């Protein structure tokens, strides 16, 4: 195996993991606030559509990504309204959101399957990008790739280094107590849900703008669900999202490369691995929770908050 192939594999894995990182880090914040939004796939696909459509009409990647971000937020706001104000069941509402997003994007996107857009070129940082091996590996990605990793850091910083982050986590763990000491549970949760939507939207846009510059309905092909699994896999710890995304994204890429070298592992087996890993993590979390040594799952996850005042 030569050097350039190895570099290519690593780049491939990074690219494949970016949509997962975006979607998962957004959902992580949502779940930390005690809300379970199963609509990630729906928000992603809407982001993918809007990113593509706006890029097609304006030719500006910046506006395109912004549109995807707002689109994801718009879809998430439906979820926020239904679950936080009308107190609907979060699981059912989230599923509905996914189905709605898939159908809506397929419908609106009809006319765009025939269009092509200019690929957003990767950054080329003078000097740095030209260093052999390190250059292509570290300094020649699309800006969104760096943003993904930065967002993970930012979320970690927010959750664990700021007062608001502490409040958000406490709301996720015990919304009644947080409410009793005067925190606005609903406001925090709505903000978290909108942030989750924005991140899922960008994740989707990365898919339709950077990974493959085309629009096709259903093009997220289950990545939103993998992102959901990823949040559990990370046991709600931001940096573990990166690890998980690299493993989950890496499985696909390595599997394709393995086939080229005629090493055959059953594809069906590989495609169930992420979910299998998630289940194993869940079980081990449960075991640890019994010992009360490390409880990371937000206690109020998925529970409806009835404001008493």
């Amino acid at each position, binding site marked *: 195996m030569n050097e350039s192939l190895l570099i290519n594999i690593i780049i*491939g894995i990074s690219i494949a993991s970016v949509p997962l990182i975006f979607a998962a880090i957004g959902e992580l914040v949502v779940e930390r606030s005690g809300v379970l939004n199963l609509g990630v796939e729906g928000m992603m696909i809407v982001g993918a559509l809007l990113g593509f459509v706006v890029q097609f009409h304006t030719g500006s990647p910046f506006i395109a990504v912004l549109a995807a971000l707002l689109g994801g937020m718009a879809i998430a706001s439906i979820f926020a309204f239904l679950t936080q104000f009308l107190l609907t069941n979060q699981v059912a509402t989230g599923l509905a959101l996914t189905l709605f997003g898939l159908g809506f994007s397929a419908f609106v996107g009809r006319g765009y399957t025939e269009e092509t857009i200019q690929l957003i070129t990767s950054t080329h940082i003078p000097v740095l990008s030209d260093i052999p091996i390190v250059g292509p590996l570290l300094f020649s990605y699309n800006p969104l790739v760096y943003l993904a990793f930065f967002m993970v850091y930012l979320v970690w910083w927010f959750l664990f280094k700021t007062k608001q982050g502490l409040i958000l986590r406490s709301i996720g763990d015990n919304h009644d107590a947080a409410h009793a000491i005067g925190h606005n549970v609903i406001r925090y949760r709505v903000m978290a849900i909108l942030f989750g939507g924005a991140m899922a939207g960008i994740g989707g846009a990365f898919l339709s703008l950077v990974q493959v510059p085309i629009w096709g309905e259903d093009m997220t092909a289950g990545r939103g669900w993998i992102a959901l699994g990823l949040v559990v896999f990370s046991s709600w710890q931001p940096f573990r999202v990166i690890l998980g995304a690299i493993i989950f994204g890496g499985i696909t890429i390595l599997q394709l490369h393995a086939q080229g070298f005629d090493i055959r592992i059953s594809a069906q087996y590989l495609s169930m691995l992420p979910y299998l890993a998630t289940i194993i993590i869940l079980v081990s979390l449960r075991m640890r929770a019994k010992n009360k040594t490390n409880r990371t799952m937000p206690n109020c996850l998925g529970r409806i908050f009835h404001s008493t005042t």
Partner: protein
Amino acid sequence: MSNIRLTSILKLSLLSAVLAFTSNVFADPVKAAFVYIGPTGDHGWTFAHDQGAKYVKEHMGDDVVITTVESVAENSDSERTITSLARKNDIIFTTSFGYMNPTIKVAKRYPDVKFEHATGYMLADNVSVYSARFYEGRHIIGKLAGKMTKSNVIGYIASFPIPEVIRGINAAYLAAKSVNPDIQIKIVWVYTWYDPGKEADAANALIAQGADIIMQHTDSTAAMTVAEETEGVYAFGQASDMGEWGPTSQLTGIIDDWGPYYLARVQAVKDGTWTSTDTFDGIAEGMVEFAPMANMPKDLASWAERTINAIGNGYIHPFTGPINKQDGSPWLAEGETPPAYPDLLTMDFYVEGIDSKYPN
């Protein structure tokens, strides 16, 4: 009061529905339905079938009512979909290999409805099968690949190990080998017909492993966009002309032209002359066509055109012996060509020389 009014409204609407139904029968437009595996916007396989459906509508106008159902999974969904269509239609086209068993099953229950299943091999009194000799197209792109490659590596993005896909791989490899003895083919199975992200990843993986020609048996344009991004890599359109996505990288494309066949079959239902048939048409009948030759030297383009004609006239058969199977056992003797059934329609082996394990 309001209850009574409601019931009478219901009754009236029911009556008008019945009237509408019977008057439809008298006016007698043929009701034709199409079941698709992917979205019509894939610009590949499903798109081509949908173009065929539109062709029927264009030519028959008010004499036909067309229903299409997109993105029907090849599981129990398909049986349910076909069943509900069978209640309301005269003829149903099921356009993916995986619909074979559901089609046969539903056809048994609806003997008066005509069924047409694409790319399969199970016939019944009210079930026709039809497919195109896409391997003739694969022969052309295989030869072009053999001539155009600099790395002598062809990358092949395959979907599912079914006879149709295996035929394509074998035909392309044999043709490439015939003009370039050093050719090597790398095959990657993605186990999906349509997942643009995964198809692009597969194309990238193949290119990283040295392929400078990408062939695909998946339905989206993703691989073509990857080829377009990569200097010196060429690709072929699949099922339709994908030149828009690869202006500097599409060499040609295999185009499926189902229109005339669909028209003939729907017309046959209208005329009452429909019988169960087994169609396997190719270049000669116009079911397999090509996108314009592009991004290649002129003499190569005209050579490709001549080869297309030679296949159309029957001078070349893509599978002409001697050909051995991958394990070295003989398949075709010198000068022998295989029958459509069972050799071609149930093909489940690689030919000798393909350096890749057969998927199980």
